Structure formats: C-alpha cells, structure tokens
C-alpha cells in the first residue's frame, strides 16, 4: 500500500513537471502553430539560472527560484521577438529555428558549466519527507504538484477572464480574424511565449529539486515527454495537457516500478501510439 502511495505521489510530481513544460508548448502550438523545440532549452535555462543564483551567487532558494523563472521568461521573450517574429510568414522555418536554438543552448550551457550534473541546492524546508497513508514521500513532489495546480488554475483564469486570454482563445481558432478585429495578435504571441517560458523555467527550477541535480541535457529529455503529453492532450488544450500529464506521469512511475527499469518510458510511448491510432486527434480532439 505504502509503495502504491509513494509511486502515486511521485508519478503526480513527474506529471506536474511535464505539465509545467507542456502547458506552454501546447499554448504556443495552439496559437502560433509553432512546435517549439527550444522549450527544453528554456527549461534548462531556468534550471541553470536557479542553480547559479542559489549555489554560486549565494541567494536563498526562495529568491533563486523567482530569479531563474525570470531569466527563463526573458529568454523566451527574446526568442519570440528576435527569432520567431521575423519568420512569421514562414511557419516551417520557425520550427527549424527553434530546433537550432534547442541544439545550441544546451551546448552553450555545457561549454560554460561542463557536461556533468551539478548538485542542486535543497532548502531544508523542502528536503524532508511527509508521511501520507503510511508512505514516506519527499516533500518536493508536493511542491511540484502545488505549482502545477496553481499554474493550471492561473492559466484557466487568464484564458477565461482576461482580455488577453480571450484573444489567445480566439487566436487559437483563427489568427487572421483576430487581427481583422483590430487586435495586434503579435503581442499575444509574445505574451504566450513569456507565459510558456516562465512555466518551463519554473519547471526547470523545481525539476532541480525533483532530480537533485541539473545537467545540460535535462531539458531536452523532458521535452520529448512533454511533446507526448501535448499530442495526447490534443494540441492547444491546456486542460487536455493537464490530464495527459497526470496519466503519463503515473503510467511511467508504476510501469517502471512493477515491470523493470525503462519499461515505463516504453509504456508511455506505446500508450501514445495506441491513443493516436484509436483517436488520431488526441484526447480533446484538437489536432491541427
């Protein structure tokens, strides 16, 4: 029983991490049709910025996380303004440009801080464990889940209640018509990139807690599962991404534990293949 609870909480934590990456990916794809291969790089930037602020610059963890998130957000905005926006009329080249960034950024991080994993600062408050139904669960799992739930609620409120949320929802349906109503939809693009970058960078910072260390390839590794989550959830749907994140995280953890290492990842892939064959449009039926 306690194993099940532990696996469940860990799976939820992993799912939360996936959601932090996938929510932005999904929004960006839905609004802009850009499959952002640089999203893993944004996560890595957030992770390294948090690590640097905490371990090198001596900031407390509670300041390092906002700092890392901020750096990731700025990176995302710069990416949108200087790489994506000039290629607005060339959608396929936008994707290719993000592929280039996705290759270059981890290499740069490796060049600066080396290829080896760096131990991530763990504040005393979050390094402990909680006892849940007899299981001993690391606190950071709950931190991740809380962050993901908070993000989901914020995003839903943003989309439902604000004017920019309205613009984003309309833009996912028909970008050209949004501009034809006199709205500069490019500002919404930048905003969505900023939100996605912030979420990914926060994922990087909290992922450091989860894994205990940071390395240059972490973002790219998570990106692929985030892609799986986005496709499963129906591209462009935040709620779908949330549901798929939980599913993928749980399946991975349970399969890894009960069937041997590595099979969890395989089972996720099989799950995706089966889902796409049964429902080619994803869970929410929104494949562009």
């Amino acid at each position: 029983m306690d194993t099940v609870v532990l696996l469940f909480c860990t799976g939820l934590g992993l799912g939360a991490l996936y959601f932090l990456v996938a929510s932005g990916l999904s929004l960006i794809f839905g609004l802009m049709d850009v499959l952002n291969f640089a999203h893993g790089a944004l996560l890595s930037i957030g992770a390294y910025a948090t690590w640097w602020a905490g371990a090198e610059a001596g900031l407390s963890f509670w300041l390092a996380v906002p700092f890392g998130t901020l750096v990731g957000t700025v990176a995302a905005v710069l990416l949108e303004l200087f790489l994506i926006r000039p290629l607005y009329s060339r959608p396929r080249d936008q994707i290719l440009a993000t592929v280039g960034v996705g290759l270059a950024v981890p290499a740069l991080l490796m060049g600066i801080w080396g290829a080896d994993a760096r131990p991530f600062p763990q504040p005393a408050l979050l390094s402990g464990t909680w006892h849940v139904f007899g299981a001993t669960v690391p606190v950071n799992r709950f931190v991740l889940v809380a962050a993901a739930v908070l993000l989901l609620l914020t995003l839903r409120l943003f989309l439902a209640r604000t004017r920019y949320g309205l613009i984003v929802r309309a833009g996912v349906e028909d970008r050209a018509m949004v501009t034809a109503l006199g709205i500069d939809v490019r500002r919404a693009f930048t905003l969505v990139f900023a939100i996605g970058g912030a979420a990914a960078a926060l994922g990087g910072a909290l992922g450091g807690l989860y894994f205990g260390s940071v390395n240059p390839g972490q973002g790219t590794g998570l990106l692929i599962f985030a892609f799986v989550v986005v496709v499963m959830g129906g591209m462009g749907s935040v709620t779908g991404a949330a549901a798929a994140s939980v599913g993928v995280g749980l399946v991975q953890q349970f399969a890894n534990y009960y069937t041997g290492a590595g099979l969890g990842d395989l089972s996720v892939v099989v799950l995706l293949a089966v889902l796409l064959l049964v429902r080619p449009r994803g869970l929410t039926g929104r494949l562009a």
Partner: protein
Amino acid sequence: MTSSLPSSPSSTPRAAASTSSALEPLLSVRDLRVVIDGLHILHGVDLDVAPAGVTALLGRNGAGKTTTVKAVMGLVPRTGSVRLAGAELSSLPTHLVVRHGIGYAPEDRGIFAGLTVAENLRLAERGARGGEEGGEPDYALVHELFPELKQRAGQLAGTLSGGQQQMVAIGRTLLNRNRLIIADEPTKGLAPKIVSEVAEVLARAAEAVPVLLVEQNLALVRRLAGTCAVLADGRTAHRGDTAELLADEEAARRLLGVGSRHPLAGGPRPAASPATPVVTTEVKP
C-alpha cells in the same frame, strides 16, 4: 425606425450615393496587385467607395472579389495604393488598417465557434482604453438591430445557425464607430427570409456608415447599391452606376456571367467576342 443611427439627409442609400458621388471617394484603391506563392491573383484593381451608401463589388466566382477585400484589409500581401479618407493603408498590418475605422465581416463570417456570442462581440471592442479610435462600444445599436444576440449572449457561437452567425459578424462591425464597413457576401448560404433581414440591416447601417458590399445576389445589389465595380480576371472591368449596369442585359451577362433579369433564363448566346473590351465608365454628374 427607432434607430440610434443618425438619420441620413436622403431617403434611400442609392440617392445618398448619387448625390455624394461628386465628393471625394471615402476609400480609393488604385492598381491593387496580389501575388501569392508566385501566382498573380490580382493584376491591378481600381475601386472607389462612395462616402455614403452602399458600393457593390461584383464579378464572377474566381474574379478576385474576396482577394481584393482581403488585400484592402492587409490579410494578403499586396502592392498598390489603398487610401481611406486620404490616409494610405497599403503598407499597414491588418490591425492598424482596422484601427483606421474599418469594420470587416469576412466571407465565411469569421466567427469564433468556441467563444460565446458575448465574447465574440467583446473581442471586437476597440479603443475601450483611450476611447479615441473606436469610441465607446455601441451595444445599444447592436442589440436593437439584433435582439437575438442579447438573448443568446452566453451561447457558443459555433452552435448558432448561419443567419445568427452572420448577425454576430455584422454586429461586430457596428460595435465601433467605423468609417467604413466591408461585408463579403453576407447572404451566402442563408435562407431567403434571413437574406431579407440581413439586407434590411445593411440598408440601415449604410445610412450611418458607408458600406462596401461583395455580393452575388443581384436582387440585393440592385436594391442597395448606388455605385459598383465589377472585377474580371483579377482586374477592374467596369465601374459605374449599379442600376445602369443591371439594366443593360448584355453588359451584365458579359461581366457577371448571368442575365441580370432572369438568372435562370437562357437567352441567346453572346456573340463570340475575341477579347472582352474593358469598360471603364466613370460616373460623373
């Protein structure tokens, strides 16, 4: 009529158009060209929209009417001159074109199906902050013309009927204080009863705001439009008075592909003319 629209000095839109045709055109398009993926769609469209009433943009399917309207809006890459009340718009992105005071109801209505009716309208509000360009959103007018939109405010626009969706599309153009309304085939696919309702709304809108109307329904055009331009093969083939054009059976057949009086009547085949002469009869009083 208990409209909040300011009453026009002339009784019908047509009369308004003919009396005002001496004035400068509100929208003036010159040598508009569009090339998409190396394919020349428009080869030089000239078009004037009268400063009052309805101006019709006519032509057969594939003549380039919708592309012309999209080029004016900046929705497709274009060259040439597009001047609205003296301001050059041809180099502006779409949202700035709109902020010069153009309300646009596109061919496929451009409704956001996953948004509610109220949200569709709210999205169209402009200048809510400064209050300068679009003015306060005129919900009173929209709800007076389309009471249904008020009742169905919370309904998803995708579940509306075609006629109701068209009401949302036109309602969006009336929400702001626009200088010009462009309606691209607003009656496409609507039942006859709804067509006449849409026509009524357009007539009333045109009393306050000039309208550029793309339309296939010639009966509607005859009733509403004072002046017209006819496109053929991506060029302006004719400009002039609508009534005159529709009265000329031969010209209407040649330019529009159907007899103007009886679209279903066969009539004699036109003499095989080697090349279509381009008629450009400017209407000058």
